[in-house]
């Protein structure tokens, strides 16, 4: 029992329950819409956490993969006649393939160099989205057709709440599976000592690449969701600031904690809504909150609070 509570699956179960009951507590569609957005961003962060939190490899370019998913569900149905669901799968596969090809050379870099290289990768994506007007609509972006599944039209906050919520639970479950497997142990080992990991027979480049590809697929699926939910995709969907936002969510919530990533996503989606009461000072307030959190909860919200709790109990 104790091992279950401290293991990765307790969080997944709690998350599933939360997703199931949350709509009962939300007073209006407006809140449901925000909850759906949180689910979509949290999905990205859960994937990114495998790369940054577990394998210890930063990426400042994951909005690029998010954009691949988003533009896939715009371009696929509009120009290629694909059904939206197939375009979504194709988008995820393409993002994974690009991550595989780009990851090989880029993941040889470490620390700051890796950060700059992934940032460059993200900028390249953004440039393609903005400049290939014939396909992407250029800077103005393009409309995204609705997703139709089994003859039903997937639209509206309620529907997308359930799609993103269920996907998030599945995403968190898959992440928990990975973490508890030899692959997850290899990733965490690489984070703490690449030298020791290698000496024990771990093919370090391969496992970094696995985390990179997995996180890219998570991002692409979430990107497709957001585009279909909004009915529109623009280069900002996949811009540089988006990448930073993803990393901030992961760090704020707590690296190496799947639940932390979800809390981080919730915070960064909710705070700007709440802070509108400060009007012109909204961004200052947001910035201050982020600084204060990082100073007092340096391991991120969830791991730091969990640590405090354990310390109080003993």
């Amino acid at each position, binding site marked *: 029992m104790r091992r279950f509570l401290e293991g990765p699956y307790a969080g997944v179960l709690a998350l599933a329950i939360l997703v199931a009951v949350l709509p009962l507590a939300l007073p209006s569609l407006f809140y449901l819409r925000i909850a759906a957005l949180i689910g979509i961003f949290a999905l990205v962060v859960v994937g990114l956490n495998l790369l940054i939190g577990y394998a210890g490899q930063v990426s400042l370019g994951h909005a690029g993969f998010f954009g691949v998913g988003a533009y896939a569900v715009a371009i696929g149905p509009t120009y290629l006649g694909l059904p939206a669901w197939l375009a979504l799968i194709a988008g995820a596969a393409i993002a994974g393939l690009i991550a595989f090809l780009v990851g090989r050379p880029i993941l040889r870099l470490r620390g700051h160099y890796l950060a700059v290289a992934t940032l460059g990768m993200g900028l390249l994506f953004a440039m393609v989205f903005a400049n290939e007007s014939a396909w992407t609509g250029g800077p103005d972006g393009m409309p995204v057709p609705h997703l139709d599944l089994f003859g039903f039209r997937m639209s509206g906050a309620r529907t997308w709440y359930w799609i993103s919520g269920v996907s998030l639970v599945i995403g968190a479950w*898959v992440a928990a*599976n*990975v973490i*508890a*497997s*030899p*692959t*997850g*142990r*290899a990733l*965490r*080992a690489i*984070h*703490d*000592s690449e*030298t*020791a*990991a*290698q*000496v*024990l*027979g*771990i*093919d*370090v480049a391969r496992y970094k690449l*696995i985390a990179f590809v997995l996180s890219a697929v998570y991002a692409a699926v979430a990107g497709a969701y957001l585009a279909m939910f909004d009915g529109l995709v623009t280069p900002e969907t996949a811009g540089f600031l988006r990448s930073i936002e993803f990393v901030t969510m992961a760090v704020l919530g707590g690296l*190496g904690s799947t639940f932390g990533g979800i809390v981080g996503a919730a915070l960064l989606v909710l705070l700007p809504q709440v802070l509108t009461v400060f009007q012109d000072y909204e961004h200052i307030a947001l910035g201050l909150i982020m600084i204060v959190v990082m100073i007092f909860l340096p391991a991120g919200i969830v791991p730091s609070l969990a640590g405090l709790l354990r310390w109080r109990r003993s």
Partner: protein
Amino acid sequence: MSMLAVEGLGITFGGVTALADVSFEVKPAEIFAIIGPNGAGKTTLFNVISGLYPPRQGRVRLNGEDVTGLPPDRLARRGLSRTFQNLQVFFRMTVAENIMVGRHLHERRNVLAHLFTLPSVLAQNRATRAKAENLLAFVDLSDLADRTAGSLPYGALRRLEIARALATEPKLLLLDEPAAGCNPVETEEIDNVIQKIAASGVAVVLVEHDMKLVMKISHRIHVLDRGRTIAQGSAADVRNNEQVIAAYLGRHGQREAARAQD
């Protein structure tokens, strides 16, 4: 046939010769010690043998096969494992998980199965965990299995590294100062552990400054000074070698070493 053969190994760092023309062979079940003063090149030698540094001259053979320049993970597949003088523990993982990482090469590594935790993955996790618990018992760390490795005292971390290296089921084990920072009780324990490992047929190369330990358990000793071999032979040969006494042991060390053998 020798398990490890090192032939004319040499490496330099920006003009500093860290190793020059070092040669020796180690047989299965043998405890082969490498000693020498600080900066003699002992750790560098381990780094070259284990594939972390490519040598500038010379060859490394494992079981007769030339493995010079192979990366560490390839060497691990051929039965080489090691510990680190500057501990390379996975500090954020538990003690048991550290050892479980050592089982990597013996586990099925199908990522798709891992994504969906097929029942086979669960069964394998249990088997790996059981193996890890056996090894923890072997180095007397069972009580600490579920503690975060970062919270362990120094002596326990040394034994953890040995157990983790053993988890790979090596045929050649390089131990870099396994008793450094350990109290006499812990050193005694490590002494036993090393002898058991060698008795099971593993070729052990031991770097250690504790002369009592070295003289007591080593079958042969190789002495390095400033990257060069200055002596090689039995404990008695080395202990009475004037050059070794001058470069490393000193008169006090020689007496200490002599006592260890009685």
